[in-house]
């Protein structure tokens, strides 16, 4: 083998993080093919081995589309408030349409209240946090069905 193990490891990590769908590497004695496409057939003889069982924890929630829904995430840690003031109606309700500049909630840090904007157009599909709860940076506050898709299902 003329390729170092750590190089292979580094490549695999790089690949996992990348947008690439396939990575193919050939050196003197080793050929490495990584693919995220389950349909991409790998050639060669069928010296298959049983797949090792997967035990990794589910990935942490990230601001990516889930079932076509896009989260609005917390810009920092703070306390989540759905309404401008106690006793007033919430900024948004589930089912309501929002545009990029719609204020959807407040995040409070030491009595400083900062409005959070939707950041995209669409329809509020779900509220993820209870009023008055602490949220961390990056936590999903609402799930939004983006406009294009909302139009389809309307």
């Amino acid at each position, binding site marked *: 083998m003329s390729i170092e193990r750590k190089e292979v490891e580094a490549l695999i*990590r790089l690949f996992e993080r990348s947008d690439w769908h396939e990575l193919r590497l050939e050196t003197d004695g080793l050929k490495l093919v990584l693919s995220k496409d389950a349909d991409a057939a790998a050639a060669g003889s069928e010296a298959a081995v049983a797949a090792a069982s997967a035990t990794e924890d589910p990935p942490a929630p990230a601001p990516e589309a889930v079932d076509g829904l896009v989260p609005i995430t917390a810009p*920092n840690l703070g*306390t989540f408030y759905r309404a401008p003031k106690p006793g007033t109606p919430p900024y948004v309700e589930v089912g309501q349409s929002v545009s990029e500049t719609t204020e959807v909630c407040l995040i409070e840090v030491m009595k400083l209240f900062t409005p959070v904007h939707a950041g995209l157009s669409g329809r509020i599909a779900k509220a993820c946090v209870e009023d008055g709860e*602490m949220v961390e940076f*990056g936590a999903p506050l609402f799930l939004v069905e983006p406009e294009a898709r909302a139009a389809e299902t309307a």
Partner: protein
Amino acid sequence: MALSRVFVANRGEIAVRVVRACRARGLESVVGVSDADRESLAAALADRAVVLGPAPARDSYLDTNLVVHAAKATGCDALHPGYGFLSESPVLARLCEREGIAFVGPRAETIERLGDKLAARAVAGEAGVAIVPGSGEIRSAAEALTFAGSAGYPVLIKASAGGGGRGMFVARAEVDIEEGFERASEEARAAFGDGALFAERFVEDARHVEVQIMGDGAGEVVHYGERDCSVQRRFQKVVEEAPAAALPPRARSSIHDAACRLARHLDYRSAGTVEFLYDVAREEAYFIEANVRIQVEHPVTEEVTGVDLIEEQLRIAQGGGLSVTQEDIALAGHAIECRINAEAPERGFAPSPGLIDAWCPPAGRGIRIDSHCRAGAFVPPFYDSMIAKLIVRAGSRTEAVERMGSALAEFRIDGIATNLAFQERLVRHPDFAANRLNTRWLEDVFMPSLVH
């Protein structure tokens, strides 16, 4: 005060260190991390980790309100600020006070009085602690000239608000004064938003020595001996030792006394360091400044005294006072710390963040590693480049130097550039072994010796 849960307002090795100390004292810990540090060792070891904000420190670690909000929201009744970041911010200390959170450090007013260098010199004067002959605030090059005329050259012009070597300029003769004043003033404004300057005598052959003190906040103060941190690059410490083996006994006891006097004068609470410039030729030590927090180099003191300084800080915050009297504190052996950084000395010490592929630290008798890194850890590009502190202790300085050389040689880190080889060459240099060092040795003698 009966405390139960400590918010750790820091990252890296000191966050790990504080989490471990909390556990040792039966306290829970919550660490506030940035998005880049979600997977950090401190986050894994603490009872809980919360993500404050995105990776840049100003939006996470340096946001005072965010930090205190997180501490309150997670039910913490104490906050440890570590070093760097907000550790010397009187605003944080005051906010904690107001919110009923025990700040593990001095009172806000102490931080204020010692945080500004001019104010600190005044306090030292009140406490009868000798300071290097220096000016009050200087507002013009002309005022600097007048001072230099009476104190003699060379003269150091430096920012009042500063630290870390920024806003400093050495004038070796009259012709340098004008330029030095302008440059120092500019840098001070740029770095600290405050152009106030002062000037002092520049000691050519100087050692940086500092005394570790601890106070209960009610007048009781002890010292844990001194450290020698003369090996510096651009005013940043590179290697630290305890004790300062080169100090004559008279100078040693004189700085111990001065440090305690200063701390008692302020009813100092928690851990602090009083820094002195030791004039080798005159055998005199002058007060430089006080650091109102635990320091990076605190482990060398722990290794020669056997005390746990972080646990002691926690005990004081809990209202338990000092665990020892001065008579109980005995020093044995010698300890050295090398700061291991993710940086490439051969490329001007450029930071080298990235993925650590292999992490094989030395181990065994007399070896201590304080670090948040391990194989597979990612060194983010947003913060300080220190990835480990390698600390050795031995019966004598000679043995400790030998042990440090071997330990550095054994330490293997793959995936990122480090200063391991640089540090090894440094501690194996004959001047280092012979303790023929001063604050300019690294830049004036050692660095040139690497060029070939």
